[in-house]
Every structure is written in C-alpha cells, then in structure tokens.
C-alpha cells in the first residue's frame, strides 16, 4: 500500500461522487454523492497524514472535524429536504427551478 494507491482510491471515490452528483436528479441521491466526495477528501487527509506528515494526528483530527461538520450539515440538509418534500411532493432537481433567472 503506497500513497499513490490511496490517492487513486480517493480519486475514484471523488469521481464516483462527482458523477453521482451530476447524474442524480433526486436530492437525497445528490446528498449521498456529496458525502462520497467529502469522504474522498477525508481519505486524502488521512493518507497524506499517514505517509508524509511528521505528526499523523493533525490529518486525523482534521478528518474527524470534517466528519463532525458533515454530520451537522447532513442534519440540516435532510431537514430542508424533508420540508421541501412536504411542500412539493417531489425531490427532483429538474423541477426545483424557482431560483432560475
């Protein structure tokens, strides 16, 4: 296991997340894709911390921090999504275009 392998893995994860974000039309799916991308970033943090940093704790702390923030973000986002679903009975982003123009 080298740094390169880890980076490739996180790149693939990021790609999947991005792909999902772009292809998905369902808000929850998009949210999950965002999570995947964030995890890819976390993975980078950890791997750089493990392989090249003098002190591995900084990277780990950072990723834990990200995970915590993500959790909060998720809570808020899901709340919004739920209320949105109640209002519109749909979570298709194609239809959520109130802000265009």
């Amino acid at each position, binding site marked *: 296991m080298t740094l390169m392998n880890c980076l490739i893995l996180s790149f693939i994860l990021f790609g999947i997340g991005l792909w999902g974000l*772009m*292809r998905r*039309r369902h808000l929850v799916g998009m949210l999950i894709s965002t999570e995947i991308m964030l995890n890819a970033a976390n993975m980078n943090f950890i791997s750089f911390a493990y392989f090249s940093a003098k002190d591995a704790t900084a990277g780990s702390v950072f990723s834990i921090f990200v995970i915590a923030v993500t959790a909060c973000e998720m809570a808020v986002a899901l709340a919004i999504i739920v209320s949105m679903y109640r209002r519109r009975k749909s979570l298709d*982003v*194609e239809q*959520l*275009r109130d*802000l*265009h*123009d």
Partner: protein
Amino acid sequence: MINDVSISYLIFLMPLLTFVVNGLFLGKRSAKGAAAFAIVCNGIAMVSALLLAVSYFTSGYAPQKAILFELPFLKFAETFAANIGLLVDPLSIMMLVVVTFIAFLVNIYSVGYMRGDRAEGRFFALLSLFSFSMLGLVAATNLFQMFIFWELVGVSSYLLIGFWYHKPSAVSASKQAFILTRFADSFFLLGIVIVSFVVQSFDFEKINALTLSAFQSQTIDLGFMVMTKAEALVLGGVLIFTGGWGKSAMFPMHIWLPNAMEGPTPVSSIIHSATMVVAGVYLVARLFPFFALSGSTMNLIMVVGAFTMVFAAVIACTQKDIKRILAYSTLSQLGYMMFSLGACRMGDVVVTTGWTASTYHIFTHAFFKCSLFLIAGSLIHQVHTNDLDAMGGLRKKMPLTYVCALISILAISGIPPFSGFFSKDEIILTAFQGHHYVVFGLALLTSGLTTFYMFRLFFLAFHGAPRSESVKAGHVHEDFFMTLPIAILAVPALASGFAAKGLFEEFFVPGKLNVPQLVQLAEAHWIPYVAVAIAVVALLIAWVLYASPKAKVERALDDINRGSVYKVIYHKFYFDEMYYAVVRQFVIGGIARAARFIQDYIIEGILAFVVWFVHTLGSLVRRAQSGNLTFYLGTLVVGVLLWRFFGQLPF
C-alpha cells in the same frame, strides 16, 4: 452746452413709467385713467424733447455730437463696453422730437379709436412701451444699445399688431412681422459681432471714424472663408444693413408691413409708418460714414431702396384696402429715404446732400404719413371696413378730415408748398447729382405713381356717391378725440417743409467722413418743375379715372374682371404665397422635418440598437442562470479542469 441733463431723462422715463403703471396697475382698473395718464406722461416727454431740441440748437453747439449721459450696462473688456446712453446730434434730436410728438398725438387719437375696447388699458401700456423702446433706439450711443432697443421695438410692434389676439389674421400677421424682422436681426447681430470683434468697440463714434486701409493687412478666418479685416468690415456693414433692410421692410422682406395693418390703426400710424419702420433708414444714416467706406455697400443700399420704391408704388395703385395702400405708400417712401442714402456715393467720392435729404424726408414723412393713417383710421371707425368698396362720398360728412387729408396727400405727392415737396425734391436731386440716372428716372416715375395712387384713394374715399349704408344713413360723424390730432398734424404736414428747410440745410450733415467728398455739385433747377409737372399730370389722370363726371367707379373697384398684369399686381406679385410656400414647404416641411427625422429615427434608432444589444447580451447571460444544478456543477467541473490543465486562462 446743454445745461439741463435731467430733462433728457424725462423723455425716456415718462413713457417707461406709463408702461409700468398702465401695464401693471392702472390698465385693468380704469381705461379712462390709463388714457389720461398716458397722454399726460407722453405730453411731458414731448415737452422735454422740445426743450432739449431748443436748447441744443440755440446753444451753438450743433451740429456736433455729444453724449449727454451714459449708464454702464455690460462690460466685455476694459475698453470694450456696452452702455446705455443718449447721443445728441441733430439727427437724434429730430427723431426724439418726432417720436414724442407723434406718440403724444396718437395717444390722444387712441382715446377715440379704442373707446370701448376690452383691453384699452393694455393698449396704452403697450403704446408707451413702444415709445420708450423707439426713443431708446434713437438715443443709442452704440450698436449694442441700438440692438437692444431694436429688438424691443420689434416686440412691441409684435404685441401691438397682434393686439386683437382673437383675430387669427392679426395673430399670424404679428408672427410674420416679428419673425421676418427677427430673421433680418439675426444678420444684424452677426454684423455687430463681426464689426465689434474687429474694432473692439460698439461705439458709433469709433466705428464711424474707421478707415479700411488700417485693416487691409490683417486677415480673419470667418470659418466659411478667410478674408482681410477690411473685407470683414465691409461684410459686417452689409450684415448690419440687413437689419435695417428687414426693419424698414425693403424688398424682398417687405411683406410683413402691409400685413401688419391688421393691427389697430393708431399702431399702424405710429409704428408702421412714422417711426419704427424708419429705424432702418435711421441706422444707415447713423452709421453713414461707416457705410460710405465701401462703394458696393452703398450701391446695395441704393438698389434695394430704389427697387422697393417703385415696386411698392406699383402695387399701391391697385389695392382696395385703404390701410394697405398707405402701407405700400410707406414702403415706397422708405425706399426714397433708403436710396437717397445709398445714392450719396459716386465712384470714390461722396456727396452728402443725400444724407440731408433722407433725414429731411424722415422728418416730413412722419407727419403727413401719420396724419394719413389717422385719417384712414377715422374713416374705418366710421364705415367699419377698410375697403374702398364701402366708402365714397365722405367729403360732406367729414369736412375737417377731408381738408386734412387733402393737405397730407398734396404733401406726399410733392406739390409745393406742402412739406413733402421739399424733401422729395432734395432726394431726386441727390440721385441726379450722384449721376445715378436710372434711379433718378425711377424716382421721378414713382413720384408720379405716388400722386396717382394717393389721389385714387382720396377720390374713391371722399368723392362720388356714398357706397355704404352707414354713410347713406348719416351715422357718420367726426369724433373729437380723433379729429383733433389729425387737425394738429395738418400743420406740420403743410408747413414742416419750408419751416425746417433752413434747419436741415444748416445742421444736418452726416459727420466727419473718411472718404473724399465731392464739393462741386451739379445744379439742376429744372428738376422741381419736372417733378411737379409729373405729379400734376398724375393727379389729372387720377381725377379723370376716379372723380370726373365720366369716371366709372365700379370699373375702378372691380378686381375680378381684370387683365392678368393687373391681377398679378393686385395680388402683390404673389409674394405672400411665395413666402408661405418657402416657410411651409422648405423650412417646416423640409429642414424641420429632416431634423426631427434625425432625432426620432436615427438617434433614437441608434439608442434602441444599444438597448437591444445590452438586452440580448443580458438574455444570453440569463440563459446560463437556468436554475439547473447539474448544469452549474458541470460548468464548475469543466471550468476547474480547464483551469488546471490548460494553465493560464486570461482571468
């Protein structure tokens, strides 16, 4: 020399006071009060003017020029200032007396003429505004002051012609008069600007003392062409003359004067015959040494004057509206005055008799023409029409008027010893002495025409059988207020010629000239005899045609079954129509329409294009704001990739 300057202030302040008091306070409340106030004030002004004249001519100072007072108005540079002042010399004193005298009489006359008019008070106010402006013009010490009052007489003329503003014909006549004179004035102003730029002064004294040779070597770029300053001065002179050209209604800017007869008759008599229209002649006389510098300017003045003289006299022979006949007669007489000034130059030398003759004619003409207009007003007031058709047989009903009319008509015809004879004779003599033989012949011919159309008017109005119901029914009478001024004016119409001859010959010279003068003048004692003979022949022709027992008055007044030449003349050579066509089709329909087209289509069109362009650009950008998350994200990713892999983007 003149001890009492304060009296000269009165001449100007009195009419101004009348204008302010009548215009703002008295006019609306009491027409009688306004009239009385106007008469008293104008009387005071007249007396002051006469006192000034007496003290000037008896002081021994005449004929020198003097500036009696001068108030600063506007300064353009240290020595380049426009002041308002009073220049006294024989010419201006003569005009002051004439203007105040006639204004006084016309104010009295208006009491009768305007009685019962809705806006009598306003009338007296405006009349005094005119007197004030005219006096200011006459008193001018410099071109700038002259232009100021020149415009003011123009506007008071406008207001008085359009006095009955509910009459569309009066309104359009007033507009025409103002615009046409304004058109001439724009050239006048340009002339003033050019001349004052070259001379760096407005003062008549400096301008009259110019010599062209001093400016021969300097050039000036007038934009359209480059010329020497001497040429620019000549051009400026012509432009200044153009102002007088329009104000004195010389051909082809003459049409406003006959149309101006739409105004009340007292107005016609003071403004459009006796005083304002001679302003053009006065201007040329005032700047005579300046104009005399250039032979071509003088020739222009002469040709314009002489042509107008004949042209107007011909038209006057066919008209039926008595005020228009008098208007054309005024034009013709103005032509005499104008050409007399222009005829002074002969080759490189100048004879000054024409100047004297012209000013002399201004003087005599003012009285008899004013009187004629007042008489015409009297007739109109009694018969309620301007048309000769409805007159005739007024001799018995208005005997005093009849006698006064005869005197004035004999005066204008140049029959001795009436006043017109003396001045007209001098003018004709000038043309002869200046070797302008064509003009001389025309002047003699016009003298005959004048007699003819004036007696035509006289016979058709006063002689024969009455042609109007009111005359037949005997409603016609002589009004005291209207007949009094007419009777008073008969005196100078009769006597001002021989009474003032000595005065004019002694004092009236144009001032120092910078061109050689001709001293040896050809004497021609036969001219008066010829002129009088022509007049008498014309009188006889008129009598045969219109007053003899065999005369066919119906035929004379018929304007429909006529030959084409008569019709063309009767319709004033169709000049009104030509003007109408030019203004309507060319100015308003052509230039103005093109200007509006440029504004409404080209400029607004370019503007609309700019707006469209911005809008389109905006909608392009707006389309990107689709609200589609996927699209945003994709753009983001593509953007980041491009930035990363293609390196330096321009932003």
